[in-house]
């Protein structure tokens, strides 16, 4: 069981991610944008994985990754970003910011579990 922070402004995506991960026995915390996620990341310790959307209001995923990497607790924490196939430049931008990897949308719950299996 891992502690996972799921960040997405779309409630349906967030619910799907969260439901899938909870179904696999993980402990999931949800945030709807970067600001909320950062607040949550600061208040939670021992987060094993962060899954974040890129396009979000208030604070986008790229900025979130940069902020998280700057926190000592999140120096090595795997951070996966949710991208779409059209965002190849986003991938490199995300990597530059410190993202561990990515999950390409659309994905189904099995793909999600398989992917996070790589990092936890």
């Amino acid at each position, binding site marked *: 069981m891992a502690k996972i922070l799921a960040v997405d*402004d*779309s*409630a*349906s*995506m967030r*619910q*799907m991610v969260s*439901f*899938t991960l909870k*179904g*696999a026995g993980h402990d999931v915390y949800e945030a709807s944008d970067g600001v909320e996620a950062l607040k949550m990341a600061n208040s939670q310790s021992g987060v094993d994985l962060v899954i974040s*959307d890129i*396009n*979000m*209001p208030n604070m986008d995923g790229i900025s979130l990754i940069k902020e998280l*990497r700057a926190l000592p607790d999140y*120096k*090595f*924490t*795997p*951070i996966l970003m*949710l991208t*779409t*196939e*059209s965002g190849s430049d986003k991938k*490199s931008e995300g*990597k530059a910011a*410190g*993202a*561990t*990897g*990515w999950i390409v*949308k*659309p*994905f*189904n*719950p*099995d793909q999600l*579990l398989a992917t996070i*299996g*790589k*990092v936890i």
Partner: protein
Amino acid sequence: MSVDLKQFHQVFIEESFEGLDAMENALMELNPEAPDSETINTIFRSAHSIKGGAGTFGFKRLADFTHILETLLDQIRSNSRGLDTNLVNLFLQSVDCMREMLDLIQQDSEEYPESARELKQKFEEVLNGDSKVASKPAQNNEQQNEDKPVCNILSRYKTWSIQFHPHSDIIRSGNDPLRILRELSRLGKLNCTQVYFDAPGLAEFDPDTCYLAWDLELRTSADLSEIEEVFEWVIDDSSVEIKEIKSDSVAHTRVNFKPHQDIYLSGNDPYRIIEELLINFEVIAIDVITDQLPELKSFNSEHCYLSWSIDLAGSFSQDDVLKAFEWVVDEAEIGFEKIEADEAKEPNQSDAENETDSKPANSNKTQAASDKAPSSGRKSTSSDASSIRVGIDKIDNLINMVGELVITQSMLGQLSTDFEMSKIPKLMEGLSQLELNTRELQESVMRIRMLPISFAFSRFPRMVRDLGQRLGKKIHLEMRGENTELDKTVMEKIGDPLVHLVRNAVDHGIELPEQRRAAGKDEEGHIILNAYHQGGNVNIEIIDDGKGLDRNVLIAKAIDKGLLSEQDAFALSDEQAFDLIFHAGFSTAKEVSDVSGRGVGMDVVKKNIHALNGNIELHSKMGEGSKIKISLPLTLAILDGQLVSVCDQTYIFPIVSIIESMQYKREAVNDIAGGCSVFMLRDEYVPVIKLHDIFNISKEKNSESQELMVVVESEGEKVGLVVDELQAQQQVVIKSLEENYHRVEGVSGATILGDGTVALILDIPGIVRLAGIDKVNEQVRELTFAHKNQEKKSA
């Protein structure tokens, strides 16, 4: 693990509708000449979210459609493409189109709106205008996935040499080389052939830096792309070399495996054993020996008649091989043969393929079938139950209220345990507290159904803009009181009438700019939508500063249509003249435009509003504009009622329909032809209906003198209803008759009174129809007219 994605559909659809609203608003705000980047971002995000969700939840068409939209928006966002009004219009159309698609999805329909196809083509044209970056790559990807080559069992297992020399910063990106190795080992059998450790002295050692590198050997059925996928996130920075190690056809060992004929009965599957060999050893050939197969008639499907010879390359001990056969080795015949290089025989591959491929194929099929079953079974339950978003404050309030109710209840409970007469004041106090709690609770619950009217108003800015553009009119729309709350059901039903009225205001009310200039008005027309609470009602006003209604035109039209005689026209007040537009079959537009006058007339608007127990009034002044005021009850679930009794029965009149009540004087009643009576009410005649006749209640004769008459309005006409007694006025909760019994003409519902009895709520227009009065009205009107003339003469 299988997750039923259907459960997220409703949320997805709702949030997509919200996203589309946000997108629409942002588009309306957008100034094409100087687009604001945050606004563009909002639009992009909406499209992006819908696309992501649609793809994930399997709405491929919606995903395809939004993909192209997103591509365009992305170009605009990154300033590689300009924006013009035309493009904004196209986006706005696409918002409508996506709404339509979402509606179809909600209805589980497979249809694809024609407009979507057209729009998509238009977008593609825009995109292809300067470059060919359409949605091609996405399609290609899919095809590749579908046509994945079916490889035969031997070529599926290969040995790969992998040199993995990670970038020294790899750990800082959260990628752990160990996890990558673990991932590789999941693909097959992983051996590490060499580890490099190139660390500096302890003084310079940096724990965040990766000094390790690996040479690996992986035996797997996965193909190159799957292996590369493991390195997907690090392959750009780290050095990763993946090469296939081809096995030469050299000396090898042949394993002859003849399972016991009852092997299947022990739950063992020869195929699984061979699979294990394939994973752990370098299998270069598999031969299936089928000569033991019996005639079909003596074939026993539970027996295994096959045996195999498997050629393994490389060096290994026989014990290692036997491990794969561990559970069957006692019953099976297993032999080992050393084969020299030149003897290596061409494997009889076709048999091996048939045998081994058929099984996974079958098992896939059954899995697919079982995956399908639940989803099709669940289809019928797919929720079209509409949901409602309730502010937390309302819920908190409700919980608070229930808390107080519980306290009152326990107080009363305690009182009852040792009750004495002296405690009566306390009991009374408790009961009044209970009443207060109940009423507050009722109000709070009703408030849950209340939504701000902005839900109904939100579509108007867009509509007015589009219509104005089409008609060449400049219009400023102002909305006031958008936070006024209204019952959800009322809101849904008021939508269409409002659209009609606003359309009318734009089409018929506001003049063209040049006309307005000529009339000395501002070129830009103003339409105001105003909502506010008044008493137990919500009032909605639609005010325009257009040309207003022309009394003479209306009257001429009414006479022309045969709705009015010339004589009557003379006597009409302004208000009555304006009311003419609410008559069926009355349309003042000279020609039917596609904006308004599409068959749905003001009469339908009026009827809809009346059906909601509401009222509509029109005020207009030539050249200055019109004002339409709609008043609606706050909710449909509760009605302000007047209780009346007829003999021993109690009925409820909606208070909104009552004009006045008076003593029923026999001498003021005239009987006219058609079996109807009319009552002389001041200077007009009002048809009289005796409720006890309508409901067939027998009545003692002598009581007539004490009867009362309630004058009500039914579809614009006054009608007097004779009852025995007026009782209290109170709010009643409407229970539907249709749901519990069936529709009854003249009755709109029922309610339960304080004493537990059931009372029927009267549907006034229905009663009038039941009495057959509506046909007499013409006669009554003539009578009134004659009476007025008489009065004039006598004066």
